[in-house]
């Protein structure tokens, strides 16, 4: 059915075009023969084709353009009086005889334009005459095209400033031109709006589509006005704009209002808009409630902010006309007037205003805060936003200042910023929190006071704690980890040179992250601990400057805080992490020479080892960490050290797997021999450890033999040999060259026995160890002497 309509339309158009061409051909012949009578006759017949009602505006336009092009030839003929011998005045009378009104009016417009060009009549009279006579066609489509023809053919004959048709160079003739276009505009708009009310209701969609196609014919008048030099700022502000707006408001038609507002904004220059903002904005609340005012205003603000950014010297003018205040109040009025406007509409308006402000007045934070405040007011008393589009707009609203200032610190000074966030749903709060953190990271912004940290953590609370119970499980693990890693990174961006303030920052962060619950603490506690340890080391470094016992910022106080903080991790449970952190703290306490504190941290670590770390792999890692840390501790007195080393060796010997046991035990040997000036040097106990390791290695071999029929590789023995060599070189009197010789032989033997699985790696390891011994022997000097008795 629709297809038929389209086919029919094509057919009608083709017929129309054929007829236009045919009549045009006759017209050409008449023109060639300078036959005015025939020229008029055939042109009228050609123009009669435009009387059709069967074509959609698009098709009608095609037909119109055919006739239009032909009429230019007729116009040139009219101009050349020598060819037809009739004065233009008589010609103007003559064409009145055309039978039908539509062709008659097209001909009149054409002659009229020639008439004006010859300057034989005041343009004013001709224009007035024509614009009045066109009222004779009240069919919307035909009327619109006729009037658009009128305005096009008279366009370059309009009396304008500097134009050759401006007769007396006085303002009145410019006014004539403006009057003419305005009147034509009003008439065209009426025709256009009327189309809406014509015909049966079921064709409404089709009619609206047709109306939409026709809109540029109406808008063209505004374009012509915009091109007239006579329309200067004053003329525009005092005369043209109020009259155009009057028509726009009074037509009470939604598509017309939307389109024409858009046209006004686009066809007149920026400067005019800036200087007539009040008038233009005053019209907005009077538009139909369904008009998309937010797009209209956004376009206006876009234009103005482009204007400000391309010509920065006009910014004082923006201030002078109080552009911000006017736009802001217009937006409130529109929101107030359009009670049914969805919340997303209101927020979109604020986003545009904010974008405008950030571009035009980047220094006016108060403006930014005002906009956020207005937004809060609009959101107040409403339930949390569920509308996805609305929350998206809020994210835009909140992200814009961050992007502009590249600096969260600025945003933190905006009092309404967190209040806007309060209205977001949990998911969006998180999105926003990530945006905030990413901004900080991107710009490496340092947040330097506890107050700001407090505000910041309030803003990103969506990442810091569970906002409600239900969401906790839904989150994708990867997303969650990314979020929490971001928070961890953020904690490292909080810094102040002043230790007191830094401590306050740490307290603030601690207060917030402690609410994070078991899943978040493992991410957030480590950066907090390291941040505090950094502070401790800083205090330690400037030790001399600290005066008085009263200073609250002492390493001791911070260690206490850390102890409590890490304890929470143990409960989470995340014992392995807690153990590492305790050891880190112990080492820091060592550097501060706080023996009891260090001892306490070790105790904590041991308790965790004994009570919480059950997994054997985790135990191996833990025991090596413990041994490694303990080895570096210098703060302990003999008694404390003995207790701790004794425990550590005990743990080592009790590991599950023999090879693990062996390695842990020989590592313990280092606890008794610290290679610096005042370090412990207990050669006997070193030897004990190594012997014990050897025994365990033996046992491991035997067990392997029993269980699998072949013993494991000799790697463990080679490792122990290396330990022997180390202590031998360091001058441990208990380690003799004989012992090394024996061990080398033992390994060689083992390797030759059939029961041992050949392993290239351990063979190579042993070979290079032997090479090392040879190298030391050949070195000469005291070391060479020492190695002399070993033969390999």
């Amino acid at each position, binding site marked *: 059915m629709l297809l038929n309509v389209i086919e029919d339309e094509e057919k009608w158009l083709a017929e129309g075009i054929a*007829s236009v061409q045919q009549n045009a051909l006759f017209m050409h012949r008449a023109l060639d023969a300078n036959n005015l009578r025939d020229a008029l006759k055939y042109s009228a017949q050609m123009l009669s084709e435009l009387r059709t009602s069967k074509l959609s505006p698009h098709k009608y336009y095609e037909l119109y353009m055919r006739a239009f092009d032909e009429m230019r030839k007729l116009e040139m003929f009219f101009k050349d009086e020598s060819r037809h011998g009739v004065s233009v005045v008589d010609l103007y009378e003559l064409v009145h005889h055309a039978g039908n009104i539509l062709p008659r009016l097209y001909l009149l417009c054409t002659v009229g334009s020639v008439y004006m060009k010859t300057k034989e009549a005041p343009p004013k009279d001709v224009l007035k005459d024509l614009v009045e006579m066109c009222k004779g066609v009240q069919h919307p489509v035909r009327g619109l095209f006729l009037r658009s023809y009128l305005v096009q053919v008279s366009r370059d004959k309009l009396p304008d400033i*500097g134009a050759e048709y401006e007769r007396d160079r006085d303002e009145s003739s410019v006014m004539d031109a403006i009057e003419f276009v305005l009147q034509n505009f009003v008439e065209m708009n009426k025709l256009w709006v009327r189309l809406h009310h014509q015909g049966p209701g079921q064709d409404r969609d089709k009619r609206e589509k047709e109306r939409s196609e*026709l809109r540029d*014919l109406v808008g063209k008048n505004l374009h012509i006005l915009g091109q007239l030099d006579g329309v200067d700022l004053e003329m525009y502000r005092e005369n043209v704009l109020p009259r155009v707006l009057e028509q726009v408001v009074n037509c009470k038609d939604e598509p017309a209002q939307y389109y024409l507002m858009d046209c006004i904004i686009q066809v007149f220059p920026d400067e005019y808009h800036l200087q007539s903002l009040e008038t233009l904005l005053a019209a907005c609340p009077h538009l139909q409630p369904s008009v998309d005012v937010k797009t209209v205003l956004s376009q206006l603000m876009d234009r103005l902010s482009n204007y400000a950014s391309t010509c920065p010297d006009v910014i004082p003018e923006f201030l002078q006309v109080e552009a911000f205040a006017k736009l802001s109040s217009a937006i409130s009025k529109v929101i107030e007037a359009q009670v049914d406007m969805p919340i997303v509409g209101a927020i979109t308006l604020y986003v545009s205003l904010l974008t405008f402000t950030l571009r035009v007045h980047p220094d006016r934070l108060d403006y930014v805060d005002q906009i956020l405040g207005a937004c809060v007011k609009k959101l107040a008393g409403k339930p949390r936003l569920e509308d996805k589009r609305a929350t998206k707009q809020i994210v835009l609203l909140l992200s814009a200042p961050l992007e502009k200032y590249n600096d969260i610190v600025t945003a933190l000074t905006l009092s309404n910023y967190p209040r806007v966030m309060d209205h977001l749903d949990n998911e969006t709060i998180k999105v926003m929190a990530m945006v905030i953190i990413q901004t900080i990271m991107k710009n490496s912004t340092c947040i330097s006071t506890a107050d700001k940290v407090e505000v910041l953590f309030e803003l990103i609370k969506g990442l810091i704690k569970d906002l409600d119970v239900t969401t906790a499980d839904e989150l994708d693990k990867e997303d969650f980890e990314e979020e929490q890693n971001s928070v961890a990174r953020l904690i490292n961006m909080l810094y102040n040179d002043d230790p007191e303030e830094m401590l306050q920052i740490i307290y603030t962060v601690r207060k917030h992250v402690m609410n994070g619950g078991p899943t978040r603490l493992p991410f957030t506690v480590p950066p907090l601990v390291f941040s505090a340890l950094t502070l401790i080391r800083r205090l330690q470094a400037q030790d001399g400057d600290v005066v008085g016992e009263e200073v609250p910022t002492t390493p001791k106080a911070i260690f206490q805080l850390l102890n409590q903080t890490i304890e929470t991790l143990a409960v989470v449970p995340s014992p392995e992490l807690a153990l590492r952190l305790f050891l880190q703290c112990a080492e820091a306490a060592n550097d501060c020479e706080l023996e009891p504190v260090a001892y306490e941290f070790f105790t904590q670590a041991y308790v965790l080892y004994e009570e919480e770390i059950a997994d054997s792999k985790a135990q191996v890692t833990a025991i090596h960490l413990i041994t490694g840390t303990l080895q570096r501790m210098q703060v302990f007195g003999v008694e404390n050290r003995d207790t701790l080393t004794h425990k550590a060796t005990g743990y080592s010997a009790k590991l599950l797997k023999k090879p693990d046991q062996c390695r842990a035990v020989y590592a313990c040997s280092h606890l008794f021999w610290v290679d610096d000036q005042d370090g412990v040097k207990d050669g006997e106990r070193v030897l004990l450890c190594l012997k014990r390791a050897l025994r365990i290695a033996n046992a491991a071999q035997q067990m392997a033999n029993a269980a699998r029929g072949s013993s494991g590789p000799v790697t463990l023995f080679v490792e122990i040999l290396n330990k022997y060599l180390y202590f031998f070189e360091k001058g441990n009197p208990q380690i003799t060259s004989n012992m090394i010789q024996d061990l080398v032989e033992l390994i060689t033997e083992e390797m030759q026995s059939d029961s041992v699985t050949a392993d290239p790696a351990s063979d190579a390891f042993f070979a290079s160890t032997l090479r090392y011994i040879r190298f030391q022997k050949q070195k000469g000097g005291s070391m060479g002497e020492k190695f002399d008795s070993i033969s390999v």
Partner: protein
Amino acid sequence: MPSRRRTLLKVIILGDSGVGKTSLMNQYVNKKFSNQYKATIGADFLTKEVQFEDRLFTLQIWDTAGQERFQSLGVAFYRGADCCVLVYDVNSMKSFDNLNNWREEFLIQASPSDPENFPFVVLGNKIDVDGGNSRVVSEKKARAWCASKGNIPYFETSAKEGINVEEAFQVIAKDALKSGEEEEIYLPDTIDVGSSSQPRSSGCEC
């Protein structure tokens, strides 16, 4: 038959929004320039009389809306064009990249009888802006594109300063004239007019 010879030449100016189509036309026809951006709605034309080889022609220059939303009725006015002027802003890469679209769109919509040889002229406008410092499309690049499209004549213009505008339109007029005369040859001398010379009555009686 002297009137068989064309005296009216139709030129269409196309290009992205804000490249200066209206300004070029105003500079050429009225010797006027305004720095302020004003959108064009629909299609608009100005005419200018030009003298060429002792003959007087009327150049009908169609300025068009660069913004699509102001082209609601379509582009029926392309039909019968004798030359198409493609304008871009030398300070905007996008406007240059779009030249191809404008050219193709024109050839499809105007459907000239000999699309291969239809005359185009390319103008790189706004060379005055910022003393040329904000320029992003090099003359070399533009000329290469023009060469690849069948040696389209190319001009670097400033509607503001009036640089090269007159020269460009001279070429535009010359090319339009040439194409117009070639077109003439294909016009049939006679048409069968016997079938229906009576005006068909359709629509109302107004």
